């Protein structure tokens, strides 16, 4: 993919935002210098990415495992295709559900089509949240699995953009 002009600028800016801004008094000016533009161009471009809903949120990105949310569980469900969107939307509305996505099944090994992340401070607390989902959405007979994380090997930003050195993906 060859990018030029505005697209290249935007992808390099996205690269910065996904890796993290410099922690300095003037982060936007620092990035502008790196990208060869003015600070106002960076500010406007970020505003535009927000308005286009390309940026979902921006600010201080917290590692939840470090602030006491140790029991991060991925809950997966095998929901009939006809009702998965309805159940997914309802599930996403629960406060303790931090992400909720439909994904493909991979039969025979992986029968689940709905994923949600549940963050709790303990295993019991998280299991309690899942039980709350089961009862509220009447999922008693729905095949499900709960995958607790036991170790984190990495939690960094995505790499949708182009890296600050301009090399793209290694």
């Amino acid at each position: 993919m060859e990018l030029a002009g505005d697209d290249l600028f935007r992808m390099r800016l996205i690269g910065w935002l996904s890796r993290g801004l410099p922690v300095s008094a003037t982060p936007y000016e620092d990035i502008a210098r790196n990208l060869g533009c003015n600070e106002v161009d960076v500010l406007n471009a970020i505003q535009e990415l927000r308005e286009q809903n390309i940026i979902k949120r921006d600010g201080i990105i917290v590692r939840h495992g470090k602030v006491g949310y140790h029991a991060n569980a991925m809950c997966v469900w095998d929901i009939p295709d006809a009702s998965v969107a309805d159940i997914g939307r309802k599930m996403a509305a629960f406060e303790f559900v931090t992400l909720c996505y439909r994904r493909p099944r991979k039969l025979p090994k992986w029968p689940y089509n709905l994923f949600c992340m549940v963050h709790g401070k303990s295993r019991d607390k998280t299991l309690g949240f899942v039980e709350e989902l089961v009862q509220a959405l009447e999922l008693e007979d729905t095949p499900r699995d709960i995958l607790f994380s036991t170790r984190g090997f990495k939690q960094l930003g995505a790499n949708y953009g182009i890296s600050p050195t301009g090399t793209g993906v290694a």
Partner: protein
Amino acid sequence: MQVLDTIDKHLLNDFQQEFPLQSRPYQHLGQRLGISEEEVISRVGRLQDEGYISRVGAVFTPGKVGASVLAAMEVAPQEIENVASIINEFDGVNHNYEREHAFNLWFVVTAPDEASLAAILASMREKTGLDIMELPLLEPFHLDLGFELQWN
């Protein structure tokens, strides 16, 4: 490691979305927190060093920019650290976790476009000698706004 004080907790909780778009964003945070800009910057640096803050940056809407996939692997328990470190050598890998399941290694791979993503996954299969189950996002039901941290 130091215990988090009230200001740290506000710093972690209160600025998870719409970071101030102004020349001196930390000045604004300082005003909100009742501390100086310099102190905000030094606290953010410390919280980052200690691992509480992953970065000051953005979370992107899946599917709106670049390409990404949730990937899972079945790895022999004694091999998992080795395989995880091979995977982590690739740029754009995040949320790499060991989980309690036959599929015990889970991570997200991101790339600027679908072709780069496919190339990374192919290279991962080659370097690990293992299969990778790909679970792309089909439909999001949740708007990620960060979440209210409960400190007790």
